[in-house]
């Protein structure tokens, strides 16, 4: 008997016991009607080759293991970053169960969010009654300061009009007339979660700047800088790091959506459904800011366009990682605020450069595959080029043609980019073919990459959302010089581990 109370074997070891392996073999032989082992081995081998790669890249309809999610996930994430705000999704309820689970699995935090549970009758008659009843219940039960409404694809397909529905709900006194109910239509058959993030930020801004008290005109500038962080699995730590820099510089700022407290609450005996987040008064005042910066272009294009129309300067980055990315962000902050970058930050920069210089021999020419959201892949690739690595395959399922053009320009800016290719709109099954036919030394992406690591043996470094199978990575930054240092160490650790594992002879004590 393999099991015992003293040395309890769970799934990790139990199923390697002969009692089980023999049972598996018998089940397979007698009942499963599987293809022969030879056929499986042959297909496995074939799936690693160039011919399979060509067939794989000829796909136009089947999407296999994509690295993107749908709009309302981004809208819920964006909404969660505002003071005492309840994200509310108009449409089918199952979607909300999924959004909450998805974010909770990454952040290891509670993710409050409500649905108005539309079913067949709403599909026929529209979801107005659901919204009227839902807003009242949410307002009464969860006592939020704001309810931010987005939509599932069901509500979008039947054409529900949120603006009219919310107005009707207020007429029916579901919530007070002056209660903040911004909204964004977030069809999941358009764009991805990054689009939904952008739409919700714009929806919230346009509520406070246009609809709450009529159209506001930008007044005398407060000199503040607005920052839209974008959909970032590391937002908890990155937002804090960003604020630390701006505090050091003396820049006054407003983060437009800040989940750093919301998705990182302490364990002290009290569950905080709401904690932190951007103050609603700060959102109102944000119209008078000096400028707005989007840290991730593809999470803020529409919002920035809207803000620019209000007369503000705007700028956007592609998840500014590494030395150059951080330099550019700080210089932009300095330029817009008129505040110099202090020596203490310059010293941090110097320490990062020092670390890269110390380790450059182990990074030079290392081939890396990167996948994720378009801005992350750009920022990561830019940093890899700085380290002398070659971001050989850069793949973004939700990246488009303009992203590809930007990546090409980035590759052209460095000799290390000469042999690199960007793959917009491709999925992780494409990446599998790329990694088998043109292997890299490392793979950088999310937890979804673990299947690629298993298949190809190429070590995965988890550096972007979602990270389900490793704990607490998101609690430490990836942005700023400190974040870059941490990313550097993660890459180096894997390089050194690979070297240690590769040869008994070269098992050096000092490197």
């Amino acid at each position, binding site marked *: *008997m393999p099991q015992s109370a003293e040395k309890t074997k769970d799934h990790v070891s139990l199923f390697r016991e002969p009692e089980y392996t023999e049972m598996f073999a018998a089940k397979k032989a007698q009942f499963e009607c599987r293809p022969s082992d030879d056929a*499986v081995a042959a297909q496995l081998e074939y799936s690693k080759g160039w011919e399979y790669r060509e067939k794989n890249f000829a796909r136009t309809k*089947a*999407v296999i293991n994509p690295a993107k999610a749908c709009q309302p996930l981004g809208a819920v994430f964006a909404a969660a970053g505002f003071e005492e705000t309840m994200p509310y999704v108009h449409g*089918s309820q*199952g979607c909300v169960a999924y959004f*909450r689970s998805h974010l909770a699995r990454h952040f290891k935090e509670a993710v409050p969010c*409500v649905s108005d*549970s539309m079913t067949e009758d709403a599909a026929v008659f529209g979801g107005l009654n659901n919204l009227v009843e839902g807003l009242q*219940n949410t307002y009464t039960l969860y006592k939020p300061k704001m309810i931010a409404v987005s939509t599932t694809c069901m509500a979008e397909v039947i054409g529900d009009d949120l603006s009219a529905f919310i107005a009707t709900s207020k007429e029916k006194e579901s919530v007070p007339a002056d209660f903040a109910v911004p909204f964004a239509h977030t069809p999941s058959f358009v764009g991805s979660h990054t689009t939904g993030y952008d739409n919700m930020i714009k929806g919230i801004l346009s509520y406070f700047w246009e609809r709450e008290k009529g159209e506001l005109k930008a007044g005398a500038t407060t000199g503040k800088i607005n920052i839209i962080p974008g959909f970032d699995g590391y937002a908890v730590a990155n937002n804090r790091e960003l604020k630390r820099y701006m505090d050091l510089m003396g820049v006054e700022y407003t983060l437009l959506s800040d989940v750093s407290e919301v998705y990182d609450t302490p364990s002290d005996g009290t569950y905080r459904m709401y904690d932190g987040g951007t103050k609603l008064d700060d959102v109102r005042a944000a119209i008078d800011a000096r400028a707005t910066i989007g840290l991730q272009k593809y999470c803020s294009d529409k919002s920035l366009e809207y803000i620019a129309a209000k007369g503000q300067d705007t700028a956007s980055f592609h998840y500014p990682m590494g030395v150059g990315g951080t330099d550019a962000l700080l210089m932009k902050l300095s330029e817009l605020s008129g505040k110099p970058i202090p020596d203490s930050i310059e010293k941090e920069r110097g320490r990062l450069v020092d670390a890269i210089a110390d380790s450059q021999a182990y990074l030079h020419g290392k081939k890396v595959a990167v996948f994720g959201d378009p801005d992350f892949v750009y920022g990561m690739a830019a940093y890899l080029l700085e380290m002398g690595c070659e971001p050989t395959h850069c793949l973004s399922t939700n990246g488009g043609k303009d992203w590809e053009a930007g990546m090409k320009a980035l590759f052209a800016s460095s000799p290390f980019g000469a042999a690199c290719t960007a793959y917009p709109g491709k999925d992780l099954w494409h990446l599998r073919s790329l990694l088998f036919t043109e292997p890299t030394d490392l793979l950088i992406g999310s937890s979804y990459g673990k299947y690629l690591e298993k298949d190809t043996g190429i070590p995965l470094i988890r550096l972007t959302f979602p990270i389900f199978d490793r704990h607490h990575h998101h609690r430490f930054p990836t942005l700023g010089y400190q974040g870059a240092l941490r990313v550097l160490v993660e890459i180096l650790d894997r390089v050194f581990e690979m070297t240690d594992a590769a040869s008994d002879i070269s098992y050096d004590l000092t490197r």
Partner: protein
Amino acid sequence: MSLDYTNDTAAAEALIKEVLDQYPEKTAKKRARHLGVAKPAEEEGATSCGVKSNIKSIPGVMTIRGCAYAGSKGVVWGPVKDMVHISHGPVGCGQYSWSQRRNYFNGTVGIDSFVTMQVTSDFQERDIVFGGDKNLDAMVDELDVMFPLNKGITIQSECPIGLIGDDIEAVAKKKTAETGKTIVPVRCEGFRGVSQSLGHHIANDAIRDWVFDKSAPEEFEAGPYDVNLIADYNIGGDAWPSRKLLEEMGLRVIGMWSGDATLAEMARAPKAKLNLIHCYRSMNYICRHMEEKYGIKWVEYNFFGPTQIAASLRKIAAQFDETIQANAEAVIAKYQGLVDAVVVRYKPRLDGKTVMLYVGGLRPRHVTNAYEDLGMKIVGTGYEFGHNDDYQRTGHYVKEGTLIYDDVTGYELEKFIEKIRPDLVGSGIKEKYATQKMGVPFRQMHSWDYSGPYHGYDGFAIFARDMDMAINSPVWSKFKAPWKAA
């Protein structure tokens, strides 16, 4: 080993009132019907859990439920390992459910097994406007090129499919004729029904309509002890210790549904002598169908904890001859030593601890005795998507005074936990972190919190270990900073 205890009925009733007072009046009336306290029933040894169930969730209250797609793709079909399951519609549903149920299987991913893959038609606006049938047709061909060893394909409908008038059944028929493989359309759009539950039913019907009696009969020599192990999804490997017990008592498991299942095991099921069903909620439909059409009897069983395992082994054996009955006794005897050792080790650490549950399927009742085997008491339980027959069955498990909550809202569950302060809560990922922040130990009872298996005797040892880990972790004593007054 059944424990004898009752819970405080008056306190539970007061708590329900307190919670309902916070709702708008109309909503309070609706929710009142879903909250109750177990009362003594006429039937001896049972209680009555009289709450309403399987009713639409109320908008805006933060239901914990999912949808029909989750019930079909996520629960019933997703684990069938040698078929490719298309999440047909926009990208999200398949993405969020990708590899999240821990349906273990043996096989080579992407070659002969596809359980941990996310295959989607990734609907774009043009698909909504022009329909997705043409692309679905082409997609099936592409999947056959990518995965030539697949045994079939299922089409798991997401919300838009039923709204835009696509005819996935026609596509399935055409592609079945062209490829000779089993192509199964499933109308599990998320807006259908009130929860996951309708998705289970629709998925069951799809097996009936698109798998049974469809392919050429295989050569199969039926035996006197052939059974199907139905509605065990092999979460963390659950179905394997279960299968082991059944084989040890001399039964031949000719199909596992649907954890670690192949299409052949699904198609062969009508040849069994008996269906053994674990999760009644998700697969009673197909068992009833097999009973009506093929005359196969079905038996519910419970492999959580030694009390229920022994009772179930005897109940199953009673359907067969004396040889099997003697074997069942031998199996129970074989594992008695393990059971005793587990109880000796963990009961002193868990005795008298209170547990609140909120789960789906069978677990709100099925795990009750497993806790009691360790000396623990169930003070509250409820179903995400149970029906009346689930609550009737629950009466045989829970004690008088147990708080019962159907389709509990986030608000209610939080308040119940806060006021009752049980020693352990067993629920899902959405409930986990809010509960732990309150300083209340928690185990996910959908995914086994990434542990398992929990079924069978082998699983009981793991179950006991895990509950002990959660409750007796030193971290719970660290919540208050020492400089804060107690």
